[in-house]
């Protein structure tokens, strides 16, 4: 699949935003993050900013962005519509939560925070399901894809939270959470890769054409000699060596290194912890962008079979 920058930015940014929102909504009432208005404004504000940035970016992928509102209508069947509904629905409590944290908070703010956390989780769940429900793309139609989206969102949100909390000298809890999630994400992603690498193709050129009874099927001529939308969008291919390098970057820089750095930040704390958190954030950002780029680049669509791409690169 074509790694469209708009979608990569969208899922990474909004994933981190929702993750941050989730943790703020959850941890603030528990007093595990600073309760100051400044911290709240920063963290929830950045979360909302990332979410809006992501959603804005996603509209760049639309042919008719001015009609985007129509996407809210088909929540009964479409995960994309559900994602939209969840995102819009989350804005209400999240906005009130933002106002609440600035205003000092209270039970209402706590309630809004918790609702925001639920909304954030639901939205990211929908995002994951958009991909996981697509049968023609076996790397997406996989049980670890949605958990992955949830985990990576929670992880990146926690990393950001750690960074912000470090300024308040209260990064221990978020750092611990982020370190654990980072480790979990590392394990999940490795498990996912080994699973998709071992899984059989969902279809073959033989089943795609119904010609397998004659023998091996090979392409002779494509319908048109130049490229087309389907090929650009769905027959993107990445070299094996390149993919392996990016996998290392994603899993090590994106998950393992931040997890270690944040774990190290725990005992050190202070400025050094802040530096570790800062480094972890940077690494996680790079790693997640790589992870998301790979998520697309390594995904194979059955339509590529018609153009002669073997089920595996």
């Amino acid at each position, binding site marked *: 699949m074509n790694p469209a920058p708009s979608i990569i930015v969208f899922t990474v940014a909004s994933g981190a935003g929702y993750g941050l929102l989730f943790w703020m909504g959850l941890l603030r009432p528990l007093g595990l993050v600073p309760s100051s208005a400044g911290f709240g404004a920063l963290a929830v504000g950045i979360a909302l900013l990332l979410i809006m940035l992501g959603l804005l970016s996603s509209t760049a992928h639309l042919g008719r962005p001015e009609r985007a509102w*129509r996407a809210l*209508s*088909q*929540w009964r069947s479409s995960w994309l519509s559900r994602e939209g509904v969840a995102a819009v629905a989350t804005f209400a409590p999240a906005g009130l939560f933002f106002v609440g944290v600035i205003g000092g908070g209270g039970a209402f703010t706590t309630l809004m925070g918790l609702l925001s956390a639920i909304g954030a989780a639901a939205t990211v769940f929908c995002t994951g399901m958009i991909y996981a429900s697509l049968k023609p793309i076996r790397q997406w139609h996989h049980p670890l894809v949605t958990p992955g989206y949830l985990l990576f969102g929670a992880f990146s949100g926690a990393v950001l939270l750690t960074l912000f909390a470090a300024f308040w000298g209260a990064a221990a809890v978020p750092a611990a959470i982020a370190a654990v999630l980072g480790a979990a994400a590392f394990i999940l992603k490795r498990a996912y890769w080994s699973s998709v690498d071992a899984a059989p193709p969902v279809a073959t050129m033989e089943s795609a054409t119904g010609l397998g009874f004659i023998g091996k099927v*090979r392409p*002779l001529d494509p319908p*048109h*000699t*130049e490229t087309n939308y389907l090929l650009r969008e769905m027959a993107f291919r990445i070299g094996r060596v390149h993919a392996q390098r990016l996998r290392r970057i994603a899993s090590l820089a994106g998950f393992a290194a931040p997890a270690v750095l944040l774990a190290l930040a725990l005992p050190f704390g202070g400025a050094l912890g802040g530096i570790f958190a800062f480094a972890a954030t940077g690494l996680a950002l790079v790693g997640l962008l790589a992870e998301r780029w790979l998520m697309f680049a390594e995904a194979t669509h059955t339509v590529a079979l018609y153009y002669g791409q073997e089920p595996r690169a």
Partner: protein
Amino acid sequence: MPADGGASDRIIYSAPVGDEVKTTTCYMCACRCGIRVHLKDGRVRYIEGNPDHPVNRGVLCGKGSAGIMTHYAPARLRAPLKRIGPRGSGEFAEISWDEAMEIATGWLKNVRETDPRKLAFFTGRDQSQSLTGFWAAQFGTPNFAAHGGFCSVNMAAGGLYTIGGSFWEFGEPDWEHARYLMLFGVAEDHDSNPIKTGLAALKKRGAKVVSVNPVRTGYSAVADEWVGIRPGTDGLFIMALIHELLRTDRVDGAFLVRYTNAPWLVVRNPGGADDGLFARDADGKPLAWDRARGAIAAETADLSPVLVGEFTLPDGRKAQPVFHLMAERYLGTEYAPEAVAERCGVSAERIRRLAAEVADIAFNHPLTLDIPWTDVWGRKHETLVGRPVAFHAMRGISAHSNGFHTCRALHILQMLLGAVDTPGSWRYKSPFPRPIPPGPGPAGKGAKPNTPLAGNILSFTHGPDDLLVEEDGTPIRIDHAFSWEAPLGLHGMMHTVIGNAAKGDPYRIDTLFMFMANMAWNSAMNPLDTIACLTAQDENGDYVIPHVIYSDAYFSETVPYADLILPDTTYLERWDCISILDRPIGSSHGPGDAIRRPVVKPDRDVRPFQEVLIELGARLGLPAFVKEDGSPRFKDYPDYIVNHQRMPGIGPLAGWRGEDGSKKGVGEPNPDQLQRYIENGCFWRHHLAPEESYFKHANATYLANAKAMGLIGKSDQIVLQIWSEPLQKFRLAAEGHGAKQPPEHLRERVRTYCDPLPFWYAPLEQQQHDTEPFPLSAVTQRPMAMYHSWGTMNAWLRQIHGANKLYMARARAEEMGLAQDDWVWVESRSGRVKAQLSLMEGVNRDTVWTWNAIGKRAGAWMLTPDAAEATRGFLLNHVISEWLPAQAGPRLANADPVTGQAAWYDLRVRVTKCAPGEEGVTDPLPTMLHPPPNMPEPPDILRYHAGGAKP
């Protein structure tokens, strides 16, 4: 409530397709399908097949369906052009038609008043040769032809000299009854849609289809068996089938003695002037040896001939039946399956099996139709009994220098099986069969100033006396057709015209006048040399070919090399006549013809070529084009179509003749004729009665009716010719007999190749150079979506074929260390071209091939110079030579020695991987062509839309 896309979608279920619909005839290739053109607001909304049309019955191919894009292409020329820069510079000035006609008339008048031969008038894919040929004869130049010489004259000549018809457009399989069809060298070809429809019908019935072809695409792809033969060896394969049929005695003796010259006696007098000619009686009638009566006229109704042996004629000469000579030749060990297998790339066992299969169908499963008929001897038969084995062949066997004999061999195979115009076999398309060979010799001798030539320029030689040569054997024609170099050059030799004109061989010309022939690119063997000839200058700086006039509808690669451009219309803007005098749309069911009529008005300053030609004829005062007072005889092309009479009562169209439109074939001009055609969907078709539908060569009813309709001159039996006496006459001349003999340097060649019985020889070019370094045969074919139309100006078709690759057998490539998409050099004895490789299973392992005419020169056809056609598309033509390898004596065309057919497919090449850094762009890559003035800027996006959408 969620939005309901279905509930709010506005679908107009019953919109009228357009404001009006007009029928006409397609011109996207040579198939001539009937089309219905729907117009909306004056724009073409939809082109579909005409369900009532006999050729296509409602279907329409990929090209025809893309006609809108051909019609509206930005590459359409806009106005007459006069060259103002050097040839090839593309510097033109737009001029008025008046000025253009004055320039053309000035040049041509001078030529006609001095030496009419100095006009070379050659048309390309044109379908109005009855007019263009007639015009040339009126002008007085012998130098006329269309593109048949580089297309399929071997097929036409092989058939017309053997069975009085041919595959091509002159015959077709009995699609309704055949049980076995063997195709030879058929890619997308004449007739494109009827073949597709016919194959589907055949397969539905469970008939077997076998395709003999080096490449398994198109029709070969749907064949039940594919025989991946090596190019140029089809003749060997066919003769091995003949060998097997003779060896196993599975031949239709009754058919041979009734319908062929198998029983005719051939004089055996080695060294004598009559050797190899038919023994004839005092009336000139060929003799046969009757079992009881000895030598009697072969036409005798109750003849019981002896087919083998040597007999002494009453005058004491020895003679042998044709059958004897034929059997002797093909039973020879050189034609045994074992002897040919390796060369053909087909195992001996398989050849034997295929021979047994066709014999089985022919002889164990004859097809009987309960239709009474009467033969030429007046005998009534209650049924029609046929051999349901059909053959069809096209360019794959034709475009070789041994193609003529190969085509003839295939017809002999049909005769042995009794499978000529019988139920289930190959059938003649009306107006064929014709006498063998038809008509008098070609016109062209004694060209004089201001004098028309009498007769047809492209006609049929019967012997040396008909050749167009000077006393010393020098060709009369600029292309050397009908000379000793190509005694049966029926269609001319367009591939040699420009080279010969530049060399002055046999003389210099003044004006080269071409129509729809892309001779500066894909229509030329060796385009770059052809361009060099077109731009060659003499010591004074004058062009060696002083004037070039070109007519085309589009900015093709040839346009920049002309001095005067006469822009033609598109096919939807013109009148045309698919004439019974030329290449009509008849079928085995009966004769027919068709018209094309304008369905939209040109939005440019262009005129249909035929109309321009008729006006030029009048301006030049050509007798048939002016009245007594010198004023134009015809107002326009439609006037010509209706009122021109070639012979009394015979004109371009056969339908609705006579003053009241009641006559067929022969009748006075009918002023309402075109209207009647339009009312009938722009075609006319006469349906043969069942009793005249088969055995037309010997069917008394058919022959009488065909004569009455003017299709043939006599109603005599057309005896199929196994032994070809005209060829023997040329051979005798080469052996030193008669007044007209070939010049010394051609004597052996004529003696060898003018063999009265087909034989196989290695293609000439392969005989004459060391093929060891060039192990692969290289051939081309046209893709269906671009067959017979160059197509690249068409925005839809160029998406389907925007670049071409070189196809090679996967196993062969792997042995050579070559991989899919590698860039390779394709080298021949005459040059090299760079291409990208594609591997496939279905190609003969000693053969490489590509789609032809996809590669374009940068800038032409109004494509931007970075277009894939120019950068990745390539022409195999660059490595084909129009001349045979260097040899002693004058140069000879790379062509069939009998017919002059361009031997495109004799090419041998080697393929090597490009050096690193050479990948990505083809080579040669000639400089970009600049468009003529005022051509439209092609858009970046095309949103073609002619109504019918949502409100």
